[in-house]
């Protein structure tokens, strides 16, 4: 039983704006003309494409295999034909493209064969692989692979189901809890078994009484100790670490997973996806998306993953003065750089923004160190110090003041009376630090490469020296055995033969001499010429002599025996050529 709730430091209460869409029941969104299924579902891994252009795929058929430690599979959200496997803009502030499978729906929405898993009988590793291959990732936004979060299956005391949904405007989890509470709790039950928890705690912000009631009813039917706790509505109470803190008092430091602290947290949508995957064999191919803001018909739609945002927007009828669309909530979301981007597994809300709803901020004034940001910071940071250090590019100091514990929730910028875009400064500082670390890594690699090259050259030199020494020793040994037999060739005294170098030189000299002896006589030995060779030489000599018009033949030339008639012919030849 949770008898006492804990506080996290800070937090803010922005205008919730939940009423706009909270009463709109979940409806299926119509099939778009083309689905853009990204192979990359999170920043850490990309699935390996296993379909080709032209392939017919069925609803739920795997199109991408999990690759890497943090990889999960990707599936076709409906039946149709693979039209393209190409780069496509992604739902990311940068608007950069990633590899996507473009599927044209055939309208039949025909399922692939679905096989549920009896996870209690199957080995645990099998169940985790099953979830990985069903593409189950965290649906609260970060899309972290759920099978990794399930860890080693022991040491977890509390399984937390996150129904916080603290960001303004978003109601998808609220609707999900109201309408599909049993499915969520069934999924929670599976996660409970797989993670080996001792209890289940569902945390829901107390501004969602209907969801709390529905979840309480559903949790009553569960055979495991489960409890639904209303937590105070205070942004960011739905942040994983903040919710864990509120419910259990445990603080999970930056860069750590809850499993190291005996607690693990899953979003309500993730729990439902686990239920659908294990009990029905359905991979994760759709999610609930809230369409709200400056629209005529705020709504919650069940949307196939890969549906382009531009195909969804007409359903909510954005008003004409809408100037941009925000994906996610207004505190942590981002304005979409391109409306062709697809809905991902972590995309929970699209807000139509207008200058009236989200006015542009007043001009930035100097920081007066009033400390409002520090009082609002849920990570207990001193945001204005981080701001000074980020602004002066003193990144080392910023890190010393725990820049990376910042969760970019936006509370500090929300309260700042000087209207400083504080979070932007932290994002800037973080990316600068990452860039520097990358540079450092690159230069480390270059240095290693250089050092290895030096090492290799040194090694080769040594090897060569060793080789030469071995050869010299060999030669010396050879010389020692040969000396008595070939003393005519070894023109060195035997005492000097003991020196390997001298022996080597002597051997080389001897070899050269021997070679000379073989080659030289052949060139100069006139006596051994055959009569044909002799005749040819004489002919050549005669030609040379006459062409040079030499009146006298060189004395040492052999007797002139060539026919004189040939000479004028040669001369006339020369004349005609000139």
């Amino acid at each position, binding site marked *: 039983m949770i008898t006492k709730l804990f506080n996290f430091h800070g937090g803010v209460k*922005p205008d919730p704006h939940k009423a706009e869409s909270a009463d709109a029941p979940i409806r299926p969104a119509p099939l778009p003309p083309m689905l853009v299924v990204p192979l990359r579902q999170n920043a850490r891994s990309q699935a390996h494409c296993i379909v080709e252009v032209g392939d017919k795929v069925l609803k739920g058929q795997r199109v991408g295999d999990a690759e890497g430690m943090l990889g999960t599979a990707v599936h076709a959200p409906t039946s149709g034909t693979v039209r393209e496997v190409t780069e496509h803009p992604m739902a990311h502030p940068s608007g950069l493209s990633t590899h996507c499978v473009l599927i044209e729906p055939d309208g039949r929405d025909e399922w692939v064969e679905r096989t549920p898993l009896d996870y209690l009988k199957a080995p645990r590793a099998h169940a985790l692989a099953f979830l990985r291959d069903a593409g189950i990732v965290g649906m609260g936004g970060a899309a972290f692979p759920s099978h990794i979060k399930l860890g080693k299956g022991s040491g977890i005391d509390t399984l937390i189901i996150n129904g916080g949904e603290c960001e303004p405007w978003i109601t998808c989890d609220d609707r999900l809890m109201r309408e599909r509470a049993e499915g969520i709790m069934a999924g929670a039950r599976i996660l409970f078994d797989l993670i080996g928890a001792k209890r289940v705690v569902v945390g829901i912000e107390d501004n969602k009484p209907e969801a709390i009631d529905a979840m309480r009813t559903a949790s009553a039917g569960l055979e495991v100790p489960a409890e639904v706790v209303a937590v105070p509505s205070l942004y960011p109470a739905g942040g994983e670490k903040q919710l864990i803190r509120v419910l259990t008092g445990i603080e999970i430091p930056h860069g750590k997973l809850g499993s190291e602290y005996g607690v693990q947290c899953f979003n309500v949508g993730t729990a439902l996806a686990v239920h659908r995957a294990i009990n029905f064999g359905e991979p994760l191919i759709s999610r609930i998306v809230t369409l709200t803001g400056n629209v005529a018909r705020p709504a919650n739609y069940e949307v196939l993953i890969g549906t382009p945002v531009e195909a969804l927007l007409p359903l909510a009828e954005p008003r004409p003065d809408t100037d941009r669309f*925000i994906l996610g909530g207004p*505190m942590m979301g981002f*304005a979409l750089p391109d409306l062709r981007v697809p809905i991902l597994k972590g995309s929970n809300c699209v807000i139509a923004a207008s200058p009236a709803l989200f006015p542009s901020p007043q001009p930035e004034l100097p920081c*007066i160190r009033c400390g409002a940001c520090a009082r609002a910071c849920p990570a*207990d940071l*001193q945001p204005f110090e981080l701001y000074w250090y980020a602004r002066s590019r003193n990144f080392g100091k910023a890190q010393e003041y725990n820049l990376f*514990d910042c969760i970019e929730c936006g509370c500090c*910028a929300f309260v700042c009376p000087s209207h400083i875009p504080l979070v932007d400064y932290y994002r800037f500082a973080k990316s600068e630090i990452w860039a520097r670390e990358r540079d450092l890594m690159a230069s480390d690699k270059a240095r290693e490469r250089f050092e290895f090259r030096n090492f290799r050259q040194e090694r080769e030199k040594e090897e060569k020296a060793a080789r030469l020494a071995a050869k010299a020793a060999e030669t010396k040994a050879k010389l020692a055995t040969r000396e008595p037999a070939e003393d005519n060739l070894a023109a060195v005294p035997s005492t000097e033969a003991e020196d390997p170098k001298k022996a080597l030189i002597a051997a080389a000299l001897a070899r050269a001499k021997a070679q000379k002896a073989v080659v030289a006589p052949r060139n100069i030995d006139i006596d051994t010429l055959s009569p044909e060779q002799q005749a040819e030489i004489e002919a050549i000599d005669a030609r040379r002599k006459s062409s040079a018009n030499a009146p006298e033949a060189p004395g040492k030339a052999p007797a002139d025996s060539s026919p004189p008639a040939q000479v004028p012919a040669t001369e006339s030849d020369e004349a005609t050529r000139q």
Partner: protein
Amino acid sequence: MIHSPYVRKPASVQTVMLTVLLGLVPGVAAYVWQIGAGILVNLAIAGISALAAEGLILRLRNRPIRPAVTDLSALVTAALVVLCIPPIVPWWLTTLAVFIAIVAGKHLYGGLGQNPFNPAMVAYCTMIIAYPSLMSQWPAAGMLDFDTQLKLILGGARELDAITGATALDTLRTGLRAGTATVESVLQHDNFGFFGGRGWEWIAGAYLLGGLFLLMRGVITWHMPTAFIVALAVVSGIFWLSHPAQFASPAFHLASGGAMLAAFFIVTDPVSGATTPLGKLIFAAGVALIAYLIRVFGAFPDGIAFAVLLMNMCVPLIDMKTQPRVFGHREGPSR
């Protein structure tokens, strides 16, 4: 803004400064009631001087004038300067003090948010060193009517002894220094009321009221006023209990001089003060301790201004050494 958060709380520097000005209203009202309306003239002179100084220096610095003038921070500085100095100083002294606060105390360091020292205290300290006698003439309650005050403010001839006296703190110290008197006998003097200076104790109460308003509005936190008041009470209490004949009671010290103004409006200046929760406690307690020592053993009428400047110097160190524990970290960052 291109990036999140896309929503903002309707807060601004202007609102913060306006709240501080509103918080000063009870104190000023009590001032008018007890001492006279001359303070309003001074406030007007100081306000105009502050805006003029701000506009002039921004022009010299080639900075946009409108946002800085409309943020009301100059008016807060002006009001604090006026409330720290005697109410009957000549107009040029007020103007000079405000110029020193705005130009030297604030803009020479880079303007709003950049000054390491509390500008009003810089002005006060400069003035008390430059014009010790003018800065020591504090009328007791009901001593001067508005016409006389106005005449003095506008530069009329000053028959000092007849019209003004020293503050309660001064009287007490000089009385005790003479060696013949005890606290008991000095307190029989005309200058004293129930706890502190006659009339001034009401003003101190009004400052407290205004300070509570600031607390309620979240402009200041409880740390500084509490630490200041507790530290002043404790240190004066220790001396008082050990030698009641020689040292005044904590109630006297809290109700006298600028103690309440300092507790809620001076030490709480965010720009030049400590910012961490523990740092705020250390900072305010340090101010109270040093102020007490200067009050009792020093040569100036009140020691708060010097104490604030001395503690301002320690702020970077205090902040560095008192960083709060970050979420998930077992203990504070090790530095």
